[in-house]
């Protein structure tokens, strides 16, 4: 007790008490505040929705209609979810520039902040898949071998075994998946853009999706090892045949012409 009473008189005592008091109020605030913070969040959310709505009306409503109910030039976006918007606008497919067999990829028009706002607005219209957490598409958490198997069962019939892409009917195509960000791979599976079927968690579980992403990360990026040398784009035997008919035989004929021209005169003996 003595010790304590001595310290009570210490010049810094008042200061320490003050600190403790502050910490206590801070802690109290922290436990009591969530209501307030939620309020702040909802207001940020509604601000985002407001902003998103504004962006939507300028950039998208001409096709997708007011209130995203759909129009003659674009489908209804009610219930497509934030993930779909994040994918479509993030990969530059939306806003679509002109009508064609399918909306092509192009450099994104909106910043990520604006995309989030658009996504928030569309999500507010009806429930749909959300933008995934980062951990949901981290390739390091997947099993590439299993992913390859799943990819060949579910995706390669359109996208080719290493995701080099392929043709669909009437000028539509499944694009190359080389260097597509894991986040968009995840969202593409989740939302099924355009002619691609969607693979909700009931079809491919979260782990399945992670595995597929891990496989693509292993074989379909610019950093993927290519033990055999130049890959010729991974288009299979057609590309190889073209190479044989051009560079392959070309080099050999050049050599043949060279040999043919290199004539030592045969002396009569």
């Amino acid at each position, binding site marked *: 007790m003595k010790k304590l009473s001595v310290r009570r008189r210490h010049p810094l005592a008042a200061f320490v008490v003050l600190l403790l008091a502050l910490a206590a109020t801070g802690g109290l605030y922290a436990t009591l505040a969530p209501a307030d913070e939620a309020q702040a969040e909802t207001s940020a959310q509604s601000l985002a929705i407001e902003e998103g709505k504004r962006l939507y009306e300028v950039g998208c409503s001409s096709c997708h209609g007011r209130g995203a109910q759909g129009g003659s030039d674009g489908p209804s976006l009610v219930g497509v979810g934030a993930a779909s918007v994040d994918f479509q606008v993030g990969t530059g497919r939306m806003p679509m520039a002109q009508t064609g067999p399918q909306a092509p990829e192009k450099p994104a028009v909106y910043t990520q902040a604006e995309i989030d706002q658009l996504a928030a607005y569309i999500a507010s219209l009806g429930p749909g898949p959300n933008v995934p957490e980062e951990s949901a598409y981290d390739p390091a958490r997947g099993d*590439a071998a299993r992913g390859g198997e799943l990819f060949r069962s579910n995706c390669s019939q359109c996208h080719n*075994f290493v995701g080099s892409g392929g043709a669909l009917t009437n000028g539509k195509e499944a694009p190359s998946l080389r260097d597509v960000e894991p986040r968009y791979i995840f969202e593409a599976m989740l939302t099924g853009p355009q002619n691609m079927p969607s693979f909700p968690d009931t079809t491919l579980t979260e782990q399945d999706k992670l595995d597929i992403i891990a496989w693509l990360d292993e074989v379909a990026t610019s950093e993927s090892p290519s033990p055999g040398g130049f890959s010729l784009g991974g288009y299979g035997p057609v590309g190889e045949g073209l190479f044989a008919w051009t560079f392959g035989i070309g*080099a050999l004929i050049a050599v043949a012409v060279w040999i043919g021209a290199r004539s030592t005169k045969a002396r009569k003996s």
Partner: protein
Amino acid sequence: MSTATESPKTTADAPKNRGKAPAGERVADWADGRLGIYSLAKANMRKIFPDHWSFLLGEICLYSFVILILTGVYLTLFFVPSMAEVEYHGSFEPMQGLLMSEAYASALDINFEVRGGLLVRQIHHWAALIFVVGIFLHMFRVFFTGAFRKPREVNWLFGFLLLVLAIFTGLTGYSLPDDSLSGIGIRLMEAAILAVPVVGSYLQMFIFGGEFPGHDIIPRFFVTHVLLLPGIMLGLVVAHLILIVYHKHTHYAGPGRTNENVVGYPLLPVYMAKAGGFFFLVFGVITMIAATVTINPIWLLGPYRPDQVSTDAQPDWYLGFSEGLVRMMPGWEWVIPGGYTLNFGLLIPLAVFPAMLAVIGLYPFFESWVTKDKREHHIAQRPRNSPTRTGLGVAWLTAFGVTTIGGGNDLFAVHFNLSINAITWFCRIGFFVLPVLAFFITRRICMGLQRRDRDKVLHGRETGIIKRLPHGEFVEVHQPLPQDQLHVLTSHDQATPMEVGPETDENGVRRRINPVERVRARLSRTYYGEQAQIPKPTSEEYHEITSGHGHH
């Protein structure tokens, strides 16, 4: 020299006269005494081989064939032709723990475990593609120069068999690793077999030894690929080469180069030195390609499973046309009474595919039947001087090209931003229309070239020098061709078309003319008639014009 074996007397004298013979000579003596090499070598060492780069195309085939055998032997040491299921635990991470056939697992091991395995695999596959490219170019060189005519028809047939066998060796080889492309290919083959009416399903059971895929097909393909077909091919290659030596090689026309001789370099030493060098160059080029460019990356394709497919599942290029025939053909199906299905979608491609090949083998016999040409030919023709044949060749190539494009329709759609449906329709129509167009256009071009040759002979070469005559007229100076070029341009012979004879006999009675003969006469006209031959200048014409009355 090895006089020793010929006469004992000289042998006895030899040491006295010149001491001990050098070691090389003694070895040669030893071998000759037992194998009779000398007379063989004497007869063949001075065989002449003419010099032209296009005559080296056959050698490209020969050397790629040798490379294929060498690398194939190496691969055989490590490949396990078995469909037994194993779990993969090799060093290739993205396949860890997958179930696969032993064949596929051992193919992966060749890539990642066997020293030099990946390189050898890639050399083998690139050499296979280049081999068949070489065969094609070689064959068309022979075709367009008429080198298949008597006496070389049999050698043409040997060559044709080599082409067909090469295609099937390629097909079986492609199927061996049991990756997903292999399996998809075998599956299509199975479907085609099943489409054969009546015997289809029996054939399928016979070949696969049970339901698809079964356990037998890979071991069976293995034996076919490494033993049966290469063995037959080796025999045919030897026969092909023996016949070349026997017939002697054709050569292009030129001064002193006649139908009775061959002008070129002796087989030994000049030609052998060149050929040996060329072998190493071919090996080098193919190895360089294999060391830098991936071919058939089976480690990315995954093991075959009948429930999995992929885009870009095409055969190697030489079967692209068969794939194209299947893709182009509408999927017609008839169910005939009794419940049998006739699957025309596969049946018709299955019939057209061998037909497209067979016409190649039969062509020399067709041409000699039409032209009634039974003479021997040792001068290689210039393609322009046989416009109908050249046109037919180009027409065939066009049909082949169209079907090959049809086989890669998806890639062409993606890379040229076209609709795959449009490409398929283009190929369907093009298959019938384009070869006909190609035939007539080619013939026109040949005729144009013949006309130019005629002009060149009669009026000489345009020098580009303009001269003004005293009375003011401008003329271009033409320089007469040198003698050897005149010879090249005029040495070919021109036949006259066959006639069926008069419609009526001497009594005015209608003769019975065999309709087949009529067809033959008609065809003969397409080969030798006015639309196929510009009469080459006669020496009278030449002298009249070059004696120079006011020509320019």
